[in-house]
């Protein structure tokens, strides 16, 4: 197994409990959402509809599988030679070769000197002799971290601004609309590139950049739906009962737009995973040394002109990326249908 000295997660400056805590908090967040959802009738109905949606269930299971792999690669434990992730421990029996080798080959990919390999590799090895399957699985983490971190930036920001704009109207609405009109006026890719150029590459800055461009859509969506909810009698009733603004916002409006947030989160996550790959490919994304599907695809671009052809790295990374994005897209659509069966798409 490779010792990933450049990997940001297992680098010594990061306290060892931090990634573990992040996984724990993520699990807690999911549990909280499920628990809250159980108490709402709309969510119970949607859950029942989702149970009848085979495709949605399969997609959910695939996405959950990626989530588990990403979590295993995030949870770290200390060893004598620095910290390791659980996934590295599980896959530690796979040796590192000297260079390229084809899937299930017994000898290295070299015309002049095809040395026998230490072990067969299901999906072959990359230029440094690392197992392609292991690298692909490890790269799941970058995709999930980008999706997760960015969601932590853009969802609170977008929901808060959108719901406040709809509730208070007047100048609050004007300011929020001005803010998102201005951000939306800059084409997204230019904004991302500009922010990443100035802040430098890295997962954190990528999450910030994607969050700054991403909250606009969320704020628009929530503002629109909250405006519609404000017309409903229950808001007037709550006001007539003298409930505080805060209580109306958190207990009445927020639960009624929550399903939109979840749908947007799932669909947005797939977009973020794609964005991570494209930005890493452009060279402003994941730092060198962090396994990332975008970086693997970038590296494999030159491999296609080799003879004999090296296709397995590209195929593995693209397939994993495609599977995750596809399952998230299908799951998001299934959720939308479950909450709103009348919608067309």
């Amino acid at each position, binding site marked *: 197994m490779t010792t990933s000295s450049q990997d940001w997660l297992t680098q010594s400056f990061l306290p060892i409990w931090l990634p573990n805590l992040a996984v724990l908090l993520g699990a807690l967040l999911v549990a909280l959402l499920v628990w809250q959802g159980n108490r709402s009738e709309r969510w119970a109905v949607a859950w029942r509809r989702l149970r009848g949606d085979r495709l949605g269930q399969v997609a959910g299971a695939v996405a959950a599988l990626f989530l588990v792999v990403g979590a295993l690669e995030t949870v770290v434990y200390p060893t004598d030679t620095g910290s390791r992730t659980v996934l590295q421990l599980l896959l530690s029996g796979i040796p590192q070769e000297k260079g390229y080798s084809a899937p299930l080959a017994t000898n290295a990919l070299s015309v002049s000197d095809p040395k026998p390999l230490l072990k067969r590799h299901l999906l072959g090895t990359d230029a440094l002799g690392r197992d392609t399957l292991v690298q692909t699985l490890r790269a799941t983490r970058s995709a999930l971290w980008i999706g997760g971190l960015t969601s932590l930036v853009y969802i609170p920001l977008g929901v808060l601004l959108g719901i406040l704009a709809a509730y208070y109207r007047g100048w609050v609405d004007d300011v929020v609309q001005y803010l998102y009109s201005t951000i939306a006026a800059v084409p997204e*890719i230019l904004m991302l590139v500009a922010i990443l150029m100035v802040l430098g590459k890295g997962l954190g800055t990528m999450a910030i950049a994607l969050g700054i461009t991403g909250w606009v859509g969320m704020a628009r969506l929530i503002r629109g739906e909250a405006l519609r909810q404000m017309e409903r009698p229950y808001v007037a009733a709550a006001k007539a009962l003298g409930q505080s603004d805060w209580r109306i916002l958190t207990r009445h409006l927020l639960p009624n737009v929550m399903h939109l947030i979840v749908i947007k989160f799932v669909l947005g996550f797939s977009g973020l995973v794609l964005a991570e790959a494209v930005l890493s490919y452009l060279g402003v994304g994941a730092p060198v040394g962090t396994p990332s599907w975008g970086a693997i*695809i970038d590296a494999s671009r030159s491999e296609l002109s080799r003879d004999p052809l090296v296709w397995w790295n590209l195929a593995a990374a693209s397939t994993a990326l495609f599977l995750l994005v596809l399952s998230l897209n299908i799951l998001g*659509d299934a959720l939308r249908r479950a909450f709103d069966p009348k919608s067309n798409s």
Partner: protein
Amino acid sequence: MFSYLLRRILFFVPIVAGVMLLTFALFFMVQSPEAMARRVLGPKATPKAVELWLHNRGYDKPLLINRIPEQPWYDSLFISQMRRLATFDLGSSDVTGRPLAEVFRQGALPSLLLTVPAFLAGLVMSVGLALYLVFIRNAVADFIASLLCVALMSVPVMVYVIFGQYLVAQVFNYFPAFGFQLNGWSTAKFLLLPIALMIVSGLGADVRLFRALFLEELGQDYIRTARAKGVSSAVVLLRHVFKNGLINLITLVVASLPFLIMGSLLLENFFGIPGLGNVLFTAIQLPDFAVVQASVFLGSLLYLGGLLLTDICYAWADPRIRLH
């Protein structure tokens, strides 16, 4: 109509000002001009070279307000940058020193040659497919088609490109997989593959969107009336659904028109097309901050131009809006 347009244009003024502030904050406040100079000139640059670089561009002025005695207070980086952008003085490249207006002008044509045909062909194909899906109204076909659309949407552009290039260049050995020459009709052979890839990469999302749009129109009362009085479904689809859906479609599509000039970042780089996308790609790699800064400003102007076009289309299609 005129006063309506004037109001819309006035609405854009504070947004343009906001974008100008945003780019200034990002490029000169989040990162100091000295840091920018060091990144452009490289780690080995002498302090003297950095100073000269800053002075040549006027980046050594005080940031917001000039407090140096005997100099006017407005002689600051902020005021001069705002004045420059307001007068469309784009400045010159950080690295090559070429005026950016010229760089952008040169890149516009190759970009348009790539994006306009791809846009038109893609639009016709996706509208046709969406109409066909709505027309046959077959549950199985709908299911397969929507799954296919989602699948097409889930593939990153670079995978399309790598696969397409490999297929065409290595296997069929037919078109040139790379390169560009602006030479009459023979330019087409360099553009065919990128155009095809651009269409395919956008097809899934578009067909889905247009299908939902047409289906929504199909659910309207007037469609039921038309069907009830015996109009055939093909006529309903072309006369009513398509025509009324077209208004929504135009407003969706028109907003993306100005972006055609920006080209496609990934495609142009992959195929070596010297368009605006490639200019930006090179600027990211160098890094060349002036190019990115000017692109952000011009890009947002294009976007607002698109919004304005959309507003005009809306007002033209629906008189209630311009009288309101």
